[in-house]
């Protein structure tokens, strides 16, 4: 009897519309995201590796292994969040709320820095500010005869500056979007009631945009905490370690258990702070700011400050965008970065091997390692963009269809989990799981498939976001009518949803492409000599003292990244409400 009932409910379970899809999606997400994290935790709990927890947390090694890197990581996270909110918020306020000249140009410039890979920005810093501490090549400014102190050349200060210039465009976008929703009626009402500017700012604008400020700040925090390239390039020479560089160091010298433990701790820390940020926002439920038709408020009259503030805004953008691009390009031609504009040569691009230059390395156009890295990187970008977008579409479809229940909730939480996981920790987890054969399946270590799996999982949150937006855009009526005519799921997807939303989908896919092409932190541990990717090749050249080659490769990545981002922006015809008058 019981068996019969079970059978009946079982049949209903599977017959329910979309059930198969849900379970399929759950399985995929479990394999991609849950399994590696579970595995890395289990590995550190095995009897022979359990000691690693003590080494990391309470032994004579722990200050250097964990606590000092943790402190540095927290300082970076907090300072990057603060700096980004200040700069991004300032720019957003200028663009949205004031009558500053060249508003549109400032808005566009403010979104650019994020397109520059952070390791490229760090290399550019090195080209300009490197001093004599490490010997070898000195930077451009030192070459001009300026005496660059250690604190400006290496360590915390340059790391912070580079990270803030990298992430402030993120906070700008978030805060600008929120400011644009501030209803002019509120501001005008306050002004009519005689409120001073200061009062308007602290009484209305700040509270209303607070969620965006916190969201932007926590994104910048998470970015700073998980960034690997910048502290590795600018901090390691002065022994400044962060949790990311420690994980990399431990994995590289084969102390994997300690590396895994630090990776788990890093995941927990970033997850805690992002959760905290979310918590602060959701604590207050209502942030409804759009109430009927409010016109755009009269812009703040900056008066005599119009031009100085405009100059400041453009100055920031030039420093964060144009200078690094320009410096990297110049230094890929200059034999010595201390004389950035002298003796330019195309050797680093198209030169044949000469024993007297860089130990006989040929220019990047003739370097087979770089050519294969380029092919693999582009292949990886396309594959991940395609696979990720399809998967993102399936996941969001299954989520929209089945709104409640254990399965959709689990799927939804799992597929946004990678947002909380620093790339290097994710890479470590992937090595822990897929580095050895699983049952009949061969190990994926060093294969293209491993790169694709890890990158797809890592970028799934973005793909799902795109998928959701797209599916919500397409009216449910169309779906319903198609279903009434008997069209199956795949048919509806391919005949209705995809064609109608192809622009949004391609824009999303392009963004995934860019994110993986310029990523370093995820792939740096998955890299093998036989499966090279461009960003790691550039990083290795940079850390081995072949600055020009590193910079030339960075220019290539930068070119791909900027071109594809601009294309994506165009396709998306991204609504930028703050530009409307």
């Amino acid at each position, binding site marked *: 009897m019981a068996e019969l009932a079970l059978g009946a409910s079982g049949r209903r379970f599977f017959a329910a519309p979309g059930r198969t899809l849900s379970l399929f999606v759950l399985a995929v997400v479990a394999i991609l995201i849950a399994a590696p994290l579970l595995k890395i935790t289990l590995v550190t709990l095995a009897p022979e590796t359990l000691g690693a927890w003590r080494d990391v947390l309470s032994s004579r090694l722990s200050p250097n292994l964990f606590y000092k890197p943790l402190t540095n990581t927290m300082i970076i996270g907090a300072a990057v969040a603060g700096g980004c909110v200040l700069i991004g918020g300032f720019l957003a306020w200028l663009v949205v709320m004031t009558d500053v000249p060249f508003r549109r140009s400032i808005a566009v410039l403010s979104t650019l820095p994020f397109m520059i890979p952070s390791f490229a920005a760090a290399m550019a810093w090195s080209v300009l500010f490197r001093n004599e501490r*490490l010997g*070898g090549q000195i930077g451009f400014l030192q070459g001009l005869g300026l005496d660059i102190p250690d604190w400006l050349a290496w360590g915390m200060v340059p790391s912070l500056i580079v990270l803030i210039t990298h992430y402030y465009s993120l906070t700008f976008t978030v805060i600008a979007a929120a400011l644009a929703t501030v209803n002019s009626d509120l501001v005008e009402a306050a002004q009519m009631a005689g409120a001073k500017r200061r009062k308007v700012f602290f009484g209305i604008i700040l509270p209303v945009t607070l969620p965006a400020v916190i969201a932007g700040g926590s994104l910048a925090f998470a970015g700073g905490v998980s960034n690997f390239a910048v502290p590795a390039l600018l901090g390691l020479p002065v022994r400044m370690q962060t949790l990311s560089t420690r994980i990399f160091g431990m994995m590289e010298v084969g102390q994997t258990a300690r590396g895994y433990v630090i990776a788990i701790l890093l995941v927990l820390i970033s997850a805690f702070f992002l959760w905290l940020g979310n918590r602060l926002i959701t604590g207050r439920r209502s942030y409804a700011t759009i109430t009927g038709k409010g016109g755009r408020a009269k812009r703040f009259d900056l008066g005599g400050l119009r031009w100085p503030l405009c100059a400041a805004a453009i100055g920031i953008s030039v420093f964060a965008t144009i200078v690094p691009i320009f410096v990297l390009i110049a230094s890929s031609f200059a034999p010595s970065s201390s004389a950035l504009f002298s003796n330019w040569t195309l050797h680093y691009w198209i030169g044949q091997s000469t024993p007297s230059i860089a*130990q006989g390395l040929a220019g990047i156009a003739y370097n087979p390692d770089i050519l294969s890295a380029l092919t693999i990187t582009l292949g990886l970008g396309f594959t991940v963009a395609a696979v990720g977008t399809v998967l993102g579409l399936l996941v969001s479809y299954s989520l929209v269809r089945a709104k409640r229940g254990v399965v959709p909730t689990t799927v939804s939480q799992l597929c946004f989990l990678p947002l909380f996981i620093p790339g290097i920790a994710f890479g470590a987890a992937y090595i822990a799981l897929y580095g050895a054969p699983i049952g009949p399946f061969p190990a994926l270590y060093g294969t293209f498939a491993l790169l694709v799996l890890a990158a797809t999982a890592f970028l799934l949150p973005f793909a799902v976001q795109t998928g959701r937006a797209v599916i919500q855009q397409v009216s449910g009526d169309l779906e319903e009518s198609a279903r009434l005519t008997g069209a199956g799921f795949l048919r509806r997807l391919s005949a209705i949803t995809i064609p109608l939303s192809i622009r949004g989908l391609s824009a999303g896919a392009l963004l995934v492409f860019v994110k993986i092409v310029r990523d370093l932190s995820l792939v740096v541990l998955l890299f093998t000599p*036989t499966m090279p990717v461009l960003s790691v090749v550039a990083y290795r050249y940079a850390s081995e003292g072949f600055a020009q080659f590193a910079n030339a490769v960075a220019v290539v990545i930068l070119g791909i990244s900027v071109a594809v981002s601009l294309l994506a922006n165009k396709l998306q015809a991204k609504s930028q409400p703050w530009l409307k008058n």
Partner: protein
Amino acid sequence: MKSLLQSVAVVALGALALPALTLSALAADMDKKSPEELLDAAKAEGQVVVYSFTSRIKKVEAAFEEAYPEIDLVGYDISSTEQITRLQAEHQAGVANADVVYISDAPVVFDKLLGAGIIGPYVPPRVADRVPAEFKNPLLAQRLSTKVLMYNEQSHPDGPPVSNLWELTTAPWKGRVVMVDPLQRGDYLDLMTEIVLQSDAMAAAYEAQFGKTIALASGVNNAGEQFIADLFANDVILVGSTDDVNAAVGKLGQSNPPIGFTSYSDRRDNAEEGWALQLANSVEPSPGIVFPAVLGIAEGAKNPAAARLVIDFLMGDESETGGAGFKPFYVPGDYATRTDIVPHPDAVPLSEFAAWRVNPEKTATIRAEVADLVLTLQ
């Protein structure tokens, strides 16, 4: 019915076991072959992958492909530390990317790679009688390499600016001693380990330098550890690669150059790179270490014949300087293990070279401890 199943199983097992048997028999057979006898099989393989701890593999690649145009040598320059990690991971994953492994870090290699069956030995029969036994066992050593104290001879034309290692821990050298992070490069960890193993000599040198017996700080076990602790306390500069050390120490035109631990053989690049590197051979108690660079064949190598051909090539030809294959290593500061290759005229002869000879087995016993010590000092 049962017997039928059994016989099927036996046949199946036999079919599985057969290739394995022939492979190992083939390998044993190959070990005895001359390069001429290996050539046809190597040509059929067409390619060979070498993991090398030195960037000189690019020069070897060019020379090898000139000698054997039908075989494509793919050389990767990967530090020894990283090679060990990669090879272990690849072995665990059941993939054999590399054919030839050219590596230093003998203490770890003997234990973790050879001991675990990740690589195996091969001594080319052509040169076997001209390599002393200590360099054929447990792996073939192609040459001896070094990590020693080097100074800038342009700025110090009258000889090294220091006469005792302990001077590096004194105020004049604060922030002016350069080396590669011992946690990133195994040969530097071996140098640190050897300093600890040579604690008696270090204690004597301390007394010679400061005129009193060494007093150990709390938690420090011996004079070698004390030296490492003092060196780090004196702001030793850690960089990522030996080329960074070379450029820092050796660059021409410096008024007050730093001093550093690097490879004696990098002196070969002085003219090309604009350096003035010179060995501080007279420093007490020793300028550093000399250690073997070993060659092995990866377990399950896809190109076994070509791999053996590469190792034969790397050991040098019949001329007295080893010819094209050994040319990148026939430089002052590298010491061939083959007895019939004449010592390089511009280097201190091995018999007068004061560096400590690393004992891989002894080093292996305390290496992890020294690594942890270095970790606490950073």
